[in-house]
C-alpha cells in the first residue's frame, strides 16, 4: 500500500492569510504612525521610511507625566469609572438574573430596552438632560460625580450583554433550579452559586465599563468636567507630540490591563471568550 505525499491546496490559504494581513495593516499602520509622531525626536516632515529607526526617545512622555493636573483628572476618571461599575452591576446583575431565570419571556423587551442608550443618539441625552437640569436643579450638575448616571446608562448595553451572555454560558437557569431544589435561599444562590460561576462575565463587564468611562469625551466635555480624556484633548492642543505620547501610553495601559485580567481568568478555567465579550 503506497502512501503518496500529500499535496495540499495552498491557493485558498494564501488568499485568506493575505486578507488577514491587510486587515492587520489597517490596524497597525495608524498606530505605528502615531508612535513615530509621539516618540521620535525627528521633525515631522522628515518622518518617512528612511528615518524609521532614528531618534526614538521617551522624553516627551516624561514631560507630560510631570504635569500635576494630569493626575487630578486621572483620579476623577478612575473614581467615575469605579462608581459607574458599581451602579451598573447593582442595577443590571439582578435584572439579568431575573430575566434569565424567572421571566425569560421578558428577554426580548429587556434586550431591546438596554440597547436604547446606543440607539438613541447619546448626545441628545446629554444635551437634553444637561439643559433641563441646568434650569431645574443646577446643584445636580455641580459635582463631577453627576457624570456617573450618564456613564452607567451609556455602558449599560455592553454590561447587560456581557452579564446576560455569562448567565447563558453557565446555564444559569438550571444552576439556580438545582440550588433551589437543594434548599438554597435566593441570597445563597446569588452569592454562592451564580457570582462565582459568573466571575468571568462580571469581571469582563466591569472591565469594559471602566475602559469606556476612562475614554469618554463627549459627556465630560459638554458638561464641562475635567476628566482624563478632556485633559488629554486640552493638553494635546498645546503640545501635540507629548499629548500623543500620553494618549498612546493610556491606550497601551488599558489594553494590557484588560489582557492581563482575561489571561488570569483563563488560567482559572473561566474563559472570557465564552461570555460573548
Amino acid at each position, binding site marked *: 500500500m503506497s502512501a503518496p505525499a500529500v499535496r495540499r491546496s495552498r491557493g485558498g490559504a494564501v488568499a485568506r492569510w493575505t486578507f488577514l494581513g491587510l486587515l492587520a495593516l489597517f490596524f497597525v499602520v495608524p498606530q505605528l504612525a502615531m508612535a513615530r509622531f509621539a516618540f521620535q525626536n525627528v521633525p515631522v516632515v522628515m518622518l518617512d521610511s528612511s528615518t524609521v529607526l532614528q531618534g526614538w526617545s521617551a522624553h516627551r512622555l516624561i514631560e507630560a507625566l510631570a504635569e500635576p493636573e494630569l493626575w487630578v483628572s486621572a483620579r476623577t476618571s478612575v473614581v467615575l469609572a469605579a462608581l459607574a461599575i458599581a451602579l451598573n452591576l447593582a442595577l443590571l446583575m439582578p435584572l439579568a438574573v431575573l430575566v434569565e431565570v424567572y421571566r425569560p419571556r421578558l428577554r426580548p423587551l429587556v434586550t431591546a430596552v438596554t440597547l436604547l442608550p446606543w440607539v438613541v443618539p447619546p448626545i441628545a441625552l446629554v444635551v437634553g438632560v444637561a439643559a433641563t437640569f441646568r434650569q431645574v436643579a443646577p446643584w445636580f450638575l455641580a459635582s463631577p460625580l453627576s457624570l456617573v448616571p450618564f456613564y452607567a446608562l451609556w455602558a449599560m448595553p455592553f454590561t447587560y450583554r456581557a452579564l446576560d451572555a455569562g448567565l447563558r454560558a453557565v446555564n444559569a437557569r438550571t444552576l439556580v*433550579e438545582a*440550588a433551589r431544589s437543594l434548599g438554597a435561599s435566593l441570597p445563597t444562590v446569588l452569592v454562592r452559586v451564580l457570582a462565582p460561576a459568573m466571575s468571568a462575565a462580571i469581571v469582563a463587564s466591569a472591565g469594559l465599563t471602566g475602559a469606556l468611562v476612562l475614554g469618554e469625551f463627549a459627556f465630560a466635555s459638554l458638561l464641562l468636567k475635567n476628566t482624563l480624556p478632556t485633559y488629554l484633548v486640552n493638553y494635546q492642543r498645546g503640545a501635540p507630540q507629548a499629548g500623543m505620547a500620553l494618549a498612546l501610553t493610556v491606550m497601551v495601559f488599558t489594553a494590557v490591563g484588560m489582557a492581563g485580567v482575561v489571561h488570569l481568568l483563563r488560567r482559572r*478555567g473561566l474563559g472570557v471568550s465564552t461570555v460573548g465579550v
Partner: protein
Amino acid sequence: MTRTSTNQRTDGQHNDMATIEMIGVRKEFGATVALADLHLSIGSGELVCLLGPSGCGKTTALRLLAGFETPDAGAILVDGDDITTVPPRRRGFGMVFQEYSLFPNLTARQNIEFGLKVRRAGKAETAATVERLLTMTRLEKHASKFPHQMSGGQKQRVALARAIATQPRLLLLDEPLSALDAQVREHLREEIRRLQQQVGVTTVFVTHDQHEAMAVADRVAVMRDGVLEQIDPPRTLYSRPASAFVAGFVGTVNRVGARPEPDGWRVLGAHVPAVGEAVTGTAVVRPEQLAVQRANGTPGVFATVTGVSFLGALTRLTLDHPDEGPLVADLIGPEADGWEVGDRAIARVRADAGSVVLQ
C-alpha cells in the same frame, strides 16, 4: 382515554418514603395546554417513568412536582400533605437535570456537600454521607475534580449523588441521560435503577426513550398532548396497551387484519387468543410474536423480505406481505440465520405467542 391507577406497591419495604399524588392538575402556558387534568399517584419507594414525545407534558408535570411551576388548577400531595404552593427549596426533593447542572466552581465532593451545608448538617455527618455516596456512585477517584474535568457520565453521577445526599422524599430525574453517548446511557440507566433501589427513594423519571422507560421503571406513565394515556408496569403496558398510540410508542408493532373465530381470532392465517375490543378489526402483533419460515415451494401466501437488521440477540426482518403490507419480525437464534433481502417467506403468529391485542 385517561386511566388512573391507584395500585401502590404494598411490599412494605419503603414505608419511610413518600407517596405522591397529583390530583386534577392543569397547567397552561399562554394558549397551550401543557397538562389537561392529570391524576397520578405514586407509591412509596416506587420508580415511575413519565414517557412521551416532546411536548406531551411530561417535563411540565415534573417541574410542577419540583415546585418550579405552579399549577393553574389541582393539587399536589406528599403523604397526604398539600404542597401545591410550597416553594422548591422547602419541598426537600432531589432533582437531576438533562443539562449538566453541577456548580462549575465546586469540585465533585463540594457539589455533593452543597445541599447538606445549606441545611447546616453536622460536619461529621456530612463527611460520612459524602464518602458513602462517592463510593456508591463509584466516584472516589474523581472526588477532587471540577466539573470541566469530568466526562458527561461522571457529571451526571455527581448530580445524582448530590440529589440524594439530602435524603430527599422524592427524587426527580428530568431526562438525565439524554445528553450522553448511547453506550454510557445504557450503563448509567442500570446504575440509576440500582441506586434507587438501594436508597429506596420514591422516584419520577422523565424520558422520551421507551427502552429507557421500560428498562428502569416499576410503572410507566405514557403521556400524549398533556393527557395521561396509560400508567402500568412495563410488562402490562407492552402486552395490554390501552390505545394504539401506547402500543406504537412502547415498541414496534404490526397492525394486521383479524377475523373472529369460535374461541379466538384468525390473524395472519393462525388461530390466536386475543385481548382488547375489536373496534377496527385490527390486531396488534409484536415483532417477536411472528414466526417466519422459508417458503421452499410450499403453497400459500408469501411475503418478501425487504430488510435484515442485526440487533444483537435478535435479528429483525422487514417483510412485504401481499395482504397485510409491511411487517416486522424479530427472530432469535438459528431461526435468524441466513436471511437475505428478496427471500420469500411465510409469516405466522407463533403458536406460543400468547394473546395479541385487538383494536
